[in-house]
């Protein structure tokens, strides 16, 4: 049970992100080639990864992970931050390919690369959310008192 406001907000974002990830996984996993619908879906996906996830990641890295480290779980914070970086790397690889597809410049090879990158991104993101749901979100209860929790939740909401 997630009891903090910050935890609930992050969990909510995980949920909506996962919904998109599942759609991408289903659509891309079975598609032999790109279609306009697929390209549009991947465009939305790339946008979500680039903007929404980056906001989410930055909040965790700048606000939560330092607190986690102070509380003696710095190694866990470092692992989660490394996973953020891996997800950013795959997203960076994916973005030009999505752009090519959207502009009709993609060929069979770039579709294959895009498909593999998308599936890798989905898997990394799902595994990362699993770890955060299991380890980070329950810990927030110990890391944040009610006042700090409320203030951080307001601050985070303001960046949306």
């Amino acid at each position: 049970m997630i009891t903090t406001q910050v935890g609930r907000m992050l969990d909510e974002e995980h949920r909506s992100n996962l919904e998109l990830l599942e759609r991408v996984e289903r659509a891309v996993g079975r598609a032999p080639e790109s279609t306009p619908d697929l390209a549009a879906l991947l465009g939305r996906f790339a946008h979500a990864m680039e903007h929404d996830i980056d906001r989410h990641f930055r909040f965790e890295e700048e606000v939560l992970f330092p607190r986690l480290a102070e509380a003696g779980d710095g190694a866990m914070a470092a692992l989660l931050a490394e996973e953020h970086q891996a997800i950013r790397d795959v997203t960076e690889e994916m973005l030009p390919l999505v752009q090519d597809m959207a502009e009709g410049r993609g060929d069979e090879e770039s579709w294959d690369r895009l498909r593999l990158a998308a599936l890798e991104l989905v898997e990394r993101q799902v595994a990362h959310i699993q770890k955060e749901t299991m380890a980070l979100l329950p810990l927030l209860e110990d890391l944040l008192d009610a006042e700090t929790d409320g203030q951080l939740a307001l601050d985070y909401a303001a960046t949306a």
Partner: protein
Amino acid sequence: MSTAGAFLGGASGRLLPASLPLRFFGAAVAYHLLAWLVLAVSSRDALPLDGGLGPPLAALHLLTLGVFGMTALGAAAQLLPVATRQAPVGEHALRAVWWLYTPGVAVLAWGMHSARPPWIALGAAAVMLPLAAWTVLVARHLVGARGMPGVLAHAWSALACLVLVLVTALLLVAGWLGWPAPGRQSLLPLHLLVGPFGFMGLLALGLSYILVPMFALAVPPPERTQLASCVLVVAGLLLAAASVLAPGVPLLQPLAWSAGSTGVLLHLYLMRQALATGMRQDLGRSFVLVKSAWAALLLALVLAGVLWSGLPLPHARAWLALALVAWLLGMVLGFLQRILPFLAALHAAAGRRRGPTASSLTHERALRLHIACHFAALALLALAIGLGSATFAQLGAFTGLAGACAFAVFYLHVLRRLRAARP
């Protein structure tokens, strides 16, 4: 050491070094293979599983101690720190437990297979000592636990049952050695109750509250309902134990069955809710095994009820034994095929900017073959019981052996990939 490496190996982390859980899981994979092998080469006379010494009893203990027990030791050591928000139990002690327990299971099984009480005594000592040490280690760990009261209640209850398993096992071995001991007619039912339903069952139920929401990305079930399920299952076990010790007292068995079944149904309802509301809907092949295990658990409860009610169902004991094996084997192998690549990917990420994904460490073809063989083996064994056919029993055992080989290929592949991925 990299930051991730510090997490993986550091005392403040909640992950054990990779070699620890993997050695328990590896031994479980090996004993899975050995159990089917023993059954395959002896299944011509394996059908009357009457609890007497011989190959069937050896195969059964290779499964219960070698596969279920071994996995339980490794999984609980790795997963309980997540639930309790504490550092894992002592690494050296866990290593010592593995070094004594692993050959102990083999010696015990050999003693049972060849009906040699001295070997049984030696194996039993080598199994019971590490199990007792593990009980103390985990109990000490649970004393300082915070969070997840439902999981903790299951863990404590499972530990209490493990103590009873050890006591009843000790007395059964004493009987085989010709030493003074209470009669087998009450010891054996107690042992069969607190082993699969108590220790392994309660641990499986409790760890499911961590694993199922984790893989399905669901909100963990309400703690109160988890606790209610635990209380009902424990009440069922206590009443069932009382019915063994005081066979003349009326209503104990129906009450035990009602309480236990209600507890299990509540647990399955919580699992269904977690799967239905989880963010991940497609959980793949591993959850086909887990769901089949839940179906087998329901079947086992029905069969236990039939046995107690005295309804004339031919081969009811054998059906119950098969249902119990299908339940625990499905749970263990279903979870293992998810946990192994997940854990390996986590460890392989140490010191790397972009470690391998879990799917890149797994072996899909081997797992596909395993699941086909697993279900075919259970179906053939069911046919063997129904028809009283030793040929089907042998066919089922060889099919199970093929599946166990496929699972071992998957395990070795994960290990190889993990080794190759590490810096």
